[in-house]
């Protein structure tokens, strides 16, 4: 199993551009999550999904959109990129074992908006 994969690994965007961060998992996990990580701030939840066709906002959803058409894929869309979206983005999946929501993380995407 590849686990959770994310592409691209690095990206530089100009202000106002849009892009999609890709995330895929091959573990048949129902739960998937998008986080951003800024220095000293821990992980902030952007959006999450409890299954195909179901998504919900996390703590910091503004400026982002998601879709979940399959169990495997959970892309994150940035519209009109802003410098405040410069961050490292992590996708994670969870098997929901006994409601503990143990997370399996991808390697991250480092995004810079200039």
């Amino acid at each position, binding site marked *: 199993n590849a686990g959770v994969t994310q592409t691209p690994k690095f990206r530089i965007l100009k202000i106002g551009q849009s892009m999609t961060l890709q995330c895929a998992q091959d573990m048949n996990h129902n739960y998937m999550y998008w986080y951003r990580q800024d220095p000293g701030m821990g*992980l902030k*939840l952007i959006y999450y999904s409890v299954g195909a066709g179901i998504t919900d906002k996390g703590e910091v959803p503004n400026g982002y959109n998601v879709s979940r058409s399959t169990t495997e894929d959970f892309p994150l869309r940035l519209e009109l990129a802003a410098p405040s979206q410069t961050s490292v983005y*992590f996708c994670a999946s969870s098997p929901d074992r006994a409601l*503990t929501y*143990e*997370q399996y993380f991808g390697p991250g995407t480092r995004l810079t908006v200039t």
Partner: protein
Amino acid sequence: TQLLEQSPQFLSIQEGENLTVYCNSSSVFSSLQWYRQEPGEGPVLLVTVVTGGEVKKLKRLTFQFGDARKDSSLHITAAQPGDTGLYLCAGAGETGANSKLTFGKGITLSVRP
């Protein structure tokens, strides 16, 4: 809103020393997890504790869940440079039914050879 406070925020120690770090909250969690993150990589799950008072050991790492399920500690015996990294704690809500975790801000540990 559930918050997890981790302390200390930074810790730099010599190889071979012992250390204890903490994860505290005023909220009750149904389970609590510890992750380790190395630079340029995603966090990796170390352990999950689910019962108040539970103690789990992973080689030189000992994890404890508080009796009231509001806090946790991580003790490392004879730290090694390979223990260097960011340690994150994360909790699932009291009922476990809200499908997501609350993360602390993390503890940056540096173990000098």
